[in-house]
């Protein structure tokens, strides 16, 4: 750096402060199937199978939902294809009593947390109950404004610390979210208060049409944690084992009172940003192909195959489960318009009850509230002296 003075002669030379930083990158099972056995996590065959099943369910449901959207049976949504390992590898390390805070692209993680398939479909078809977590679930609903959920997540972790609850919070967000103030404010709070939280950034390389290099000039996203005084690690987000290993370590640290961690999962959105997007406008087929080669599912299924853990007929079984849920979803009646007044306040105030009653009456009559047969209301008393009204009172 040129500062216009001679550093050698400076009386008070610059002194490097420790620590200078390095960021670790973790990969255990690479896209060619090479396995680092020294790092291979000790997961039971049952767990490995459950994780694979969860990834496959996420993938198959995603594909089905794209078709449902194209047929106009559900609305716009954000597909997860390619990000299954980032989601399952991390969410797997939570207990049901821990908190899972999603953004808007965490279908696989939500399924793992017990959201029924039908509910996810209902959500994207506009039913309020689709966004309603079960009463025993420790999950926040999907949120659309980018990064707003992160301060909430820190709030959940703060409350856990405040009450002395044995609870860890895991919060999801994308690479683009790291540009928002809410991300930085949440990270800063988390560091200062040393709360039990794991930030999981799914760096899928794109924020709609904006590539990572236009989002940040940092070499990694993981290093942003260091500025806030806690560890950050970059992992191969398409490597289920690496995501799992890093997440387990982070969750354990949080649970032991050792504070927050940021995990950057380097992954890729293989599909559209949302079903309203056309990615051919901003990225090349070659790039997508390259990442298809790194598909988290094929990699992990090959690993299971080698270990003789791949279940037979898993796909038809999952498809049948999805088909059954789609069927119950489609049998649902249209949502009841009166429900729009539910949950606006804990106790509905009188103005809402009046609007609700008016709508109920309108719906019953199937038309405008006042039919032509009705008598006009009495003309209000007028203070004005003018008598030009053409309407007889």
């Amino acid at each position: 750096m040129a500062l216009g003075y001679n550093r050698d002669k400076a009386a008070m030379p610059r002194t490097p402060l420790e620590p200078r930083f390095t960021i670790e990158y973790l990969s255990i099972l690479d896209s060619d199937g090479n396995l680092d056995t020294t790092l291979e996590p000790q997961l039971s065959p049952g767990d490995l199978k459950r994780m694979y099943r969860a990834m496959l369910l996420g993938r198959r449901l995603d594909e089905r939902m794209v078709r449902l959207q194209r047929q106009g049976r559900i609305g716009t949504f954000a597909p997860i294809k390619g990000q299954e390992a980032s989601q399952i590898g991390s969410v797997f390390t939570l207990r049901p009593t821990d908190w899972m805070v999603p953004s808007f692209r965490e279908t696989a993680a939500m399924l793992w947390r017990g959201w029924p398939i039908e509910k996810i479909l209902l959500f994207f078809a506009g039913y309020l109950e689709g966004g309603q977590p079960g009463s025993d679930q420790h999950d926040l609903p999907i949120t659309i404004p980018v990064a707003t959920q992160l301060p909430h997540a820190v709030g959940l972790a703060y409350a856990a610390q405040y009450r002395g609850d044995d609870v860890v919070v895991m919060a999801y967000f994308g690479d683009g979210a790291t540009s928002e103030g809410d991300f930085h404010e949440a990270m800063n709070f988390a560091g200062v208060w040393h709360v039990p939280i794991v930030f999981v950034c799914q760096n899928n390389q794109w924020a709609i049409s904006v590539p990572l290099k236009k989002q940040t000039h940092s070499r990694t996203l993981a290093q942003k944690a260091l500025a806030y005084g806690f560890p950050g690690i970059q992992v191969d987000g398409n490597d289920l084992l690496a995501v799992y290993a890093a997440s387990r370590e982070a969750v354990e640290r949080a649970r032991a009172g050792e504070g927050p961690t940021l995990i950057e999962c380097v992954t890729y959105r293989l599909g559209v940003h949302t079903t309203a997007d056309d990615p051919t406008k901003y990225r090349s087929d070659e790039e997508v192909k390259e990442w298809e080669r790194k598909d988290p599912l094929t990699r992990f299924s090959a690993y299971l195959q080698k270990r003789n853990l791949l279940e037979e007929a898993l796909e038809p079984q999952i498809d049948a489960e999805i088909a059954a849920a789609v069927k119950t979803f489609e049998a649902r009646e249209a949502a009841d318009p009166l429900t729009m007044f539910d949950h606006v306040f804990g106790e509905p105030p009188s103005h809402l009850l009046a609007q609700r009653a008016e709508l109920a009456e309108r719906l019953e009559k199937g038309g405008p509230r006042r039919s032509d047969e009705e008598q006009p209301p009495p003309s209000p008393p007028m203070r004005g002296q003018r008598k030009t009204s053409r309407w007889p009172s």
Partner: protein
Amino acid sequence: MSVMTYREALNMALREEMQRDPRVFLIGEEIGVYDGAYKVTQGLLKEFGERRVVDTPICESGFTGLAVGAAMVGLRPVVEMMTFNFAILALDQIVNSAAKMYYMSGGQYNVPMVIRGPGGPAHQLAAQHSQSMEVYFYHVPGLKVVRPSTPPDAKGLLKSAIRDDNPVIFIEAETLYGIKGEVPDDPEFTIPLGKAEIRREGTDVTVFAYMGMLYRALEAAEELAKAGVSCEVVDPRTLRPMDIETMIGSVRKTHRAVVVEAGAGFAGMGSEIAAFVTENAFDDLDAPVERVTGANAPMPYAKNLEQAKTPSKEKIIAAIRRVCHA
């Protein structure tokens, strides 16, 4: 005159103002390579380059604040909010800085910027994406607020907004981007801010409406004409400052007023118009002012609920009939 969509009219206004004034630049999310989430900035990156069409990281507060700074030293930023619902993230910059800088610097720094993008209910955008955001802004001294309802207004008002020396909030509507109309080709065509427009002349009742609700009010007026009720439909166009003269003039003529707004009602545009009509024309009124608004609940996601929440033509007709005792 050329027939074009509302979207094309906005695009034309941006292009012409960028050609006319090198100080004008665009900044926002997805406005360059992607041509805008709603394609309003189509082709502008290609024509004007990256210096003047700036794709930003996702940081509404950041780029709005940056625009305030650039405007203070004489550039003319046009900020795009992907939707106005995200302007909430930049509210501090808009309310505490853009709107107050001129005042607090004793007139040393004015902030000639425009913040534009779609707002209001559209098609199934649900609670966080469908809000009629104008109410958040027109309360703030120092901000001008525009809601253009037609393609020529889109062009004429946006050009005036860009040339204005104050911060202007310019809220479009996703549901109107595709509508067509005749738009003057003249690059000097502008529509002054603060002028209302009588969209349909009538004698029995004045109906105030803008954006999507304007079209619904016009349909209601058409239907009521068959029943012998003559509606005058007035589009305020600029909500702040508001053209009280034209609006009161109409009420003085018809003696009745109905305000239609898509938002959630309480403390909305309807309340404000009802108040100043009462203040300015009480003795001219033959009936209390009626408001037709959306239900006072968040926007539901389901299509049928969305329809039930938003004012329908039938509700507008019923309100007009009530004030006319017809």
